């Protein structure tokens, strides 16, 4: 197990290196002189030259790459052209809203989707099953901003129960933090609930046909326990896989939700950085997302060995 973890961790190095090369080339392959782009339209030659020296753009590419990589290892992601701040600080400040939103969304999703899917499988063909599956089609078809604005209209504007937009740091009070995240999480979770409920239904349905379910019933086990103990546990591997992937997609895909609810998270930062051609920030964000993806995939694989004792690496 430990050796497996070690092997997997080592295997992430080439992946991350490849991403790093890509990200590095992103800036260098942009048409024109990056220093000129950075300096803007009104800069004179001296200013451009100064920027070039400052960024080390006058050195050969491999050297530039190694310097850049070395800086990052020391936590120096460069300075944002747009915000004129260290990128590391910038991202750290934006990480909390995004992580909060993603985590809350995924927890909400799992708590709703897994029981719904299991129930639909257990009552396959009933009105309940059809209802849940119908909802799931609806969930797939509604764009997140439509749901978001509908929720804001209903709960914030009409009923006035919840704040319309904005974010409060968790350190400033859990209540306010949660209150402001409820609507965005619901809006964002709808599509994932639809997706994971469907996946759960399929997976549980398959397991319910297995012999050991019959064995459990032959023991005199109650239906609830048959479902909880024998069915869901065995159906878990594919479900956990999609939960993990959903989480990865979530973190990268919160852009729209953050815009609708005006949450100062990574999604908004990415949009702003792209619009401002803020290369250091873009680079750091891409690297961070890649790293999170790799990490989540690793976690999914490790979770298999916990869920299913037959899986050993």
């Amino acid at each position, binding site marked *: 197990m430990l*050796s497996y973890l070690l092997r997997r961790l080592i295997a992430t190095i080439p992946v991350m290196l490849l991403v790093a090369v890509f990200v590095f080339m992103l800036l260098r392959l942009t048409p024109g002189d990056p220093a000129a782009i950075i300096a803007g339209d009104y800069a004179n030659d001296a200013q451009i030259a100064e920027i070039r020296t400052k960024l080390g753009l006058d050195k050969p590419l491999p050297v530039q790459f190694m310097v850049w990589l070395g800086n990052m290892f020391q936590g120096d992601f460069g300075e944002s052209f747009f915000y004129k701040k260290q990128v590391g600080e910038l991202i750290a400040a934006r990480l909390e809203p995004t992580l909060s939103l993603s985590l809350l969304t995924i927890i909400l999703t799992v708590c709703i989707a897994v029981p719904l899917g299991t129930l639909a499988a257990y009552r396959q063909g009933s009105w309940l099953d059809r209802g849940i599956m119908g909802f799931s089609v609806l969930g797939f078809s509604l764009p997140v901003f439509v749901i978001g604005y509908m929720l804001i209209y209903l709960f914030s504007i009409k009923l006035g129960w919840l704040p319309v937009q904005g974010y409060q740091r968790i350190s400033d009070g859990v209540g306010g933090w949660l209150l402001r995240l409820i609507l965005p999480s619901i809006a964002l979770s709808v599509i994932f609930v639809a997706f994971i409920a469907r996946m759960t239904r399929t997976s549980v349905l398959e397991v319910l046909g297995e012999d050991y379910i019959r064995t459990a019933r032959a023991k005199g086990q109650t239906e609830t326990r048959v479902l909880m103990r024998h069915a869901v546990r065995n159906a878990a591997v594919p479900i956990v896989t999609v939960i993990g992937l959903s989480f990865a997609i979530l973190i990268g895909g919160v852009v729209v939700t953050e815009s609708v609810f005006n949450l100062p998270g990574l999604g908004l930062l990415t949009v702003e950085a792209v619009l401002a051609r803020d290369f250091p920030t873009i680079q750091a964000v891409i690297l961070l997302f890649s790293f999170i993806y790799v990490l989540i995939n690793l976690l999914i694989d490790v979770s298999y060995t916990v869920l299913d004792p037959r899986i050993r690496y």
Partner: protein
Amino acid sequence: MEQQNVLEVRNLSVSLPKNADRPNAVENISFTVAPGEIVCVVGESGSGKSVTASAVMGLLPAALKPSTGETLLQGEDTLQANANRLRDLRGTRMAMIFQEPMTALNPVTRVGEQISEVLEIHTDLSAADRRKRAIEIMEAVHLPDPEKMVDSFPHQLSGGQRQRIMIAMALVLDPALLIADEPTTALDVTTQAQILKLIKEMQERRGTGVLFITHDFGVVAEIADRIVVMQNGRVVEYGDRDDVLRRPKEPYTQMLMASVPSMTPPDRMPRTGKNAIEVSNLNKIYGRTGWLSKDRIVHAASNVDLHVRRGETLGIVGESGSGKSTVARCIARLIDPTSGTISLHGTDIGTLPQAKLRPHRRKVQIVFQDPYRSLNPRRTIGQSLVEAPVNFGVPIDQALKTARDLMELVGLSGDALERYPHQFSGGQRQRICIARALAVEPDVLIADEAVSALDVSVQAQVLELLDDIRERYDLAMLFITHDLRVAAQICDRLIVMKKGVVVEQGPTKEVYSNPQHDYTRLLLDAAPGRDVTFGSDTAA
């Protein structure tokens, strides 16, 4: 004084859904099981034997509804019991074991927990006491080192051990009735013999009434006190073991008994044709030596030498894991041998790269065990039959004509080419698979457990067909089987394999009458029902 029967089935009928091929899964059946008695329900697939068992347990699928009759468990009708009462009865007074011990056990739960789950449902014992009881019952079913095994997962145990766990689970609360649904069908013959012995021992020691469901007359002969023969949902014959086995009254029972291949091989002329295939020093090693991981290496086949002459049937017998299928698949080059030569008409195909192998592929054809899964369900029989010849350049019209002839050769109508696999029965599908293999005019036909999934009466017909085809086309046939009765009847020569090694070989008759190796003797002794005569040549 007459003891109360543990089970009385009276006039039980279970109706099938409207679109089924008959109105009832079982119709008006009656029989009893007394304490300490083993009653075997025997029949072919679709006879309704498993439905009967599920009806008693209240485990029928929702589509099947008992329409009339009673199933009295110690006088209480389980058909009338509500869901709660049924749950109380299951595990305490009636328990069930199933065919496939791997799938019948929950793969992600420790076996000890699965046994103690029964205690958790039906008793107030503490967790520590439950564990103690689990270990005790594991000891009682002769599992080695139960203290340690109690924390194992099912996949860490052998098939026989898993079935012992199932039995332990069923017997932990000493039920009056044990229902065993084909409990040894998925096991090797030596393991089967041990499990049968265990069931008998438990039944004698605990006075359990056993309802034993099987398709295998050998097993029936081994274990039954009384026998219920079923066909198409009806009881056709019911009586004491010796009456039914030695003096079967009904033609159906007689036919079933006659279809069971005899353990005595018939006299066969030695074949003198040219060698169609010669295998020498064949090795297949699975596993890898990895960086940072433990070496896991299995010698699936070690230094196997064999040859098959034209017109000859060579049998490879052995238990699961013996390497018999590995050898077959290496010869067909479905898997690549690690080393060794496979000489087909003087060409070594053992190490030929895929591209050069293609022209030789048609020479070796294979028929697999499960006819339900070896035909593509979305293609018509015609499409499946012409695919290979067309790949080898035969014009489609000609291939279709050949396919039509082949269908008739294997005893099916040529018009059936337009139909899909699901429209045929298991035996018919296996005939189609044979036709598919013959479509490219092979020299070597490999039958890999080709009759193992078939009912005995169908099995007899398919065996006859295979023998007929071998004769007609002068084929070299490699017949892989775990079934010593089948091997006795169809093979000219035999190879006995164990753990990848050939332990004995010789003419079939000699191997059966005078086995040289201990393992061969063990296999022959373990074959169930040795003391009862089966087979068409001896049954009166």
